[in-house]
């Protein structure tokens, strides 16, 4: 008798169930790992100050301090800082999405000498850490009188972003050549082809690009901290720097509560745009 006949394989249905069970277990564990820090942040935001230093650790608050959220909201001009963040993130996300689509279209559909080299340089610039360009950037904006204004985000938006250019380039390169040829036969120039044919088809990438750019700017700490004064700065800077007692010590539970409120808009945007975001990443070949 063979080993196979001694240990017959379980039926297919059972094997599928076992596989699913394993898969879901792994997914639940991974989800838990990712949600863990956020859950801890929420719990910290609901604790009284003395519970933060308790040992053994208080996993759950003795009494849920829901008022921490109201206190965190009232302690600073939360809405004002959120409005500043929204303005900057919206300006940048809209402009950079458009400009990156335009540049990506050029790299995907137009031919010119040195195109590959230029594209390589563009991608290479992604490896430049922000810190390196920080001081020169400040000096340029200071000379132009743009410090403490939102103009830098307009200029950055109009300049496109290498990663997003890459995203659009990959997407546009995959569209059939016939579309472009038919448009040319109909008398379209490349600007019209981009605007009337390619852009309308690229909503998944547009959506992905907008979400990426928006979250990027919403979460940016360094640029607003460097370029904006305390009144005009963004929520990310305010949450980091203003939850301090009169003695200069951090108010950790209020800061945690504020951080939870700070990430809610991003979560909502992602939930609304997630289908487009996933489709955009998939169709651009970057999954």
């Amino acid at each position, binding site marked *: 008798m063979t080993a196979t006949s001694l240990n017959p394989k379980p039926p297919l249905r059972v094997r599928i169930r076992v596989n699913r069970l394993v898969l879901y277990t792994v997914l639940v564990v991974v989800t838990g790992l990712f949600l863990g820090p956020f859950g801890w942040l929420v719990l910290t935001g609901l604790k009284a100050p003395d519970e933060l230093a*308790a040992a053994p650790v208080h996993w759950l608050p003795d009494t849920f301090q829901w008022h921490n959220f109201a206190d965190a909201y009232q302690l600073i001009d939360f809405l004002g800082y959120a409005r500043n963040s929204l303005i900057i993130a919206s300006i940048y996300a809209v402009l950079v999405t458009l400009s990156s689509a335009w540049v990506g279209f050029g790299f995907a559909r137009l031919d010119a000498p040195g195109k590959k080299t230029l594209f390589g340089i563009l991608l290479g610039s992604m490896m430049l850490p922000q810190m390196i360009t920080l001081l020169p950037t*400040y000096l340029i904006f200071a000379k132009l009188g743009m410090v403490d*204004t*939102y103009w830098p985000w307009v200029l950055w938006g109009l300049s496109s972003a290498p990663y997003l250019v890459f995203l659009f380039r990959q997407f546009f390169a995959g569209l059939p050549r016939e579309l472009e040829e038919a448009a040319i036969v109909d008398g379209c120039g490349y600007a019209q082809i981009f605007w009337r044919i390619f852009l309308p088809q690229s909503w998944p990438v547009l959506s992905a690009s907008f979400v990426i750019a928006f979250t990027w700017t919403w979460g940016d700490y360094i640029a607003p901290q460097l370029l904006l*004064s*305390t009144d005009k700065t963004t929520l990310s800077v305010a949450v980091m720097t203003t939850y*301090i007692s009169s003695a200069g010590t951090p108010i950790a539970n209020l800061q945690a509560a504020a951080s939870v409120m700070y990430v809610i808009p991003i979560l909502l945007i992602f939930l609304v745009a997630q289908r487009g975001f996933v489709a955009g990443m998939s*169709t651009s070949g970057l999954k």
Partner: protein
Amino acid sequence: MHPRAGASLSRRRFLALSTAGATVGAAALSGCALEVSTGVGGGSGETVTMMVKADDITPELVQQAQKDTGITIERVDYDITKLIAMLTAGNPPDLVRGVGATDGAYFAARDVMQDLDPYFAKSDVLRLDDLDPVNDLWRYDGRSQGKGPRYGMAKDFSQDSMFWYNTTVFDDRDVPYPAETEPITFEEWIDNAKRLVRRSQGQTLVFGGSYSGLTRTTLLATMTASAGGSLFNDDFSKVDFTTPEARKALAWYIDYCKLKVGPSLIQPDPNGWDGPTFQAGRMAMSNSGYWLGGMINTDPKLAKVARLAPAPVFAGGARISACQGGTGLWMPRKAKNKDAAWRIFEWYFGEAPAKSRASGGWGIPTLKSLRELMPAQEDYQRRALQVQENELKHFSVVAFTPYATADAIDALFSRAAPAAMNGQMSVDTLAKNLNTVINDQLKRGKEQVG
């Protein structure tokens, strides 16, 4: 697979979004962004830009300044990168927060600070004979800290090698209290910490003690001075951890970390600082100076069991009790609105804000005339004050190098020291390694200063 062709609705939606974004953007730009900040005074003569932290100047103080002096304060969040950028661009703030012990010499050597001697000479509010010696941390003569022109002033201070202890934890472990007039030795401190630490299933329930100074560099420089030596050479261009005194200090600190009696790089306190842990009764001794009394005074339960003790000494060593901070303000040389900035300087250090700080207990006032305002209503406040007053006799300035920031040296220390703290490297090897990396940094700093 490609998306559907001809999705005109998406385009409209996109265009609508774009228009909305552009509208919001245009409104925002016309409303806020186009009013380019005058930032550094802009010639109005009535606005002073202060780069400080939120707690240094609260919105209430900004209003009070307007009322008391007629000058508007525009606050910019303190950020070292932003400060460097503003200094480089030639538009610095009018007043900047700084730590006297470490920033004073650093910025003075780079010639970006305003010599304030002429202002002090004319001032009726900040009289030279009224200045506490701690303000000498803000003096630099081009070679050494503590002498020469004044470039700034401390808002309050503590002798940061002192420590607070919790009598309840001492009682629980039957450990005698440290004396309040005579210092214990570092060796005794660590013995106490070993007896006081309480652990359970790998968790530290109660730290025996915390002793890490304001920065590791200032801590080790001060401890080396206590051992009778100097961490820096004569022109502050080099450190030497291999001298007997510096090695003694380093060995003590590495031993403290290795024993895991208190927070350190290899056993961090999740709270990030001693306050909440000490308040929760989870720390027997906290290496914090008088300033921690500001927090202790607000908690009557804690105040009854918290006591202040003198800075430890090495057996047979000198009694040295330095200030490792001396946080205050300085004025950049290129500040555009110096007279108004000086008026705010006087107000901040000598008038209402200074009096309020003095009575709050968050540090010793830096004007001798304000000492009478230090809190002494309660028994525990009088007790701490007595210990502090006795300790002031042993105050001295431990000079710091102008060629690197304390943060930069701390970063190098944090990279090199954990191996020794974990017992994988000897103290002698660590001392040599620290000499190499820190001296390299100091050499680069000296080249920059010229």
